[in-house]
């Protein structure tokens, strides 16, 4: 079985588990939409589009955190991760499969949330959407690794935001910049570099996270 086939099997499994359990995606949708509703009433009149884009990123980051907090729950139940770790495939395939599954959930939530944002707050152009997509990639890549690390500890709900939020700051800077800066290319390039660097680091580090 090739590396990519193992990744596909693991991602497919996560999607199937979610289709059955329906725990993560409804929670993400409810959270991101209710957050936008709260922001709609909290944002003062004439606050401007810049403030709205900032709030969008608050919603995106915390929605991703919610998804990441649940990411390894199916593997923790019945200690399934031990069975995956013993498989002859490269262990990074487990991380990549999880990253793609979390990304799929986040994109599904944003498929509803972003039109709602454009309707009630401010329009999103191509650069802003590209910024969201690139930031999603980065936060899912880094977040899946951090979530696996947090899952190994006792206080994972506490640990996960402490691990992920500092690493998400550059993504917020790049994401907001791609939406509001007059020349968004610089910010998009920054996000591409972040994704490449932290994607490779996460891919290479996962082996050490899942072995005692």
């Amino acid at each position, binding site marked *: 079985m090739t590396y990519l*086939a193992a990744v596909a099997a693991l991602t497919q499994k996560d999607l*199937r588990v979610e289709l059955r359990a329906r725990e993560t995606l409804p929670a993400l949708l409810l959270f991101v939409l209710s957050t936008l509703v709260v922001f709609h009433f909290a944002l003062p009149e004439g606050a401007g589009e810049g403030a709205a884009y900032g709030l969008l990123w608050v919603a995106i980051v915390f929605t991703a955190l919610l998804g990441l907090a649940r990411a390894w729950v*199916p593997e923790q139940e019945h200690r*399934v991760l*031990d*069975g995956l770790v*013993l*498989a002859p495939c490269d262990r990074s395939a487990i991380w990549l499969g999880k990253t793609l599954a979390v990304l799929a959930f986040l994109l599904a939530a944003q498929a509803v949330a972003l039109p709602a944002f454009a309707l009630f707050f401010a329009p999103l152009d191509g650069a802003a959407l590209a910024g969201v997509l690139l930031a999603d990639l980065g936060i899912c890549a880094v977040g899946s690794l951090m979530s696996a690390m947090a899952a190994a500890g006792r206080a994972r709900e506490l640990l996960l935001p402490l691990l992920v939020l500092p690493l998400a700051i550059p993504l917020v800077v790049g994401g907001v910049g791609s939406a509001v800066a007059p020349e968004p290319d610089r910010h998009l390039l920054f996000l591409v570099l972040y994704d490449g660097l932290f994607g490779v680091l996460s891919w290479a580090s996962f082996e050490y996270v899942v072995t005692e």
Partner: protein
Amino acid sequence: MIRARGLEKRYGRRVALAPVDLDLPRGAALLVTGPNGSGKTTLLRLVAGLTAPTRGTLEVDAERGRIGYLAHEPLLYRELTALENLELYGRLYRVRERRERAGMLLERFGLWEARNERVAAYSRGMTQRLALCRALLHDPDLLVLDEPYSALDEEGAALLDGVLAALAGARTLVVSTHDPGRLRPLATAGLALA
């Protein structure tokens, strides 16, 4: 072949496994006994490669992917059916003709009729039977079984007796149990942890 010299595992100051020496030739069957907390599960996790020793050396002559591991937990996805779980493990463990092999094992352990039910709906005994199917799916060279008879009814235990008897001599077995009498006829070596 398994060879251990001064094999020890600690978590901080707590000793999970006191130093152990072990020589087990290929095809042998080791029976590990001892009271709760003596380190049986830790030893099995070390042999399976799921944890690294704190001190000492351990050589296991079996590649990753050629080890069948049965733990206290079944290592199965609750939201997937029995067949889906075995299909996933079959793909990851590169089992040829995995559907046929999964079907054969499910049939053998009396789970064929319940193959399309989610594991969450299984009883503890059925889950243990399915966990045994999972551990045997890739026809491993080394079988590491932690309390394999727990939760099995008499019929399930008899099935497992037959499977282990068929594997004895052909595969290396490392089995921990609180009921050594049941496995004594198969065992070629014993290790009593204190």
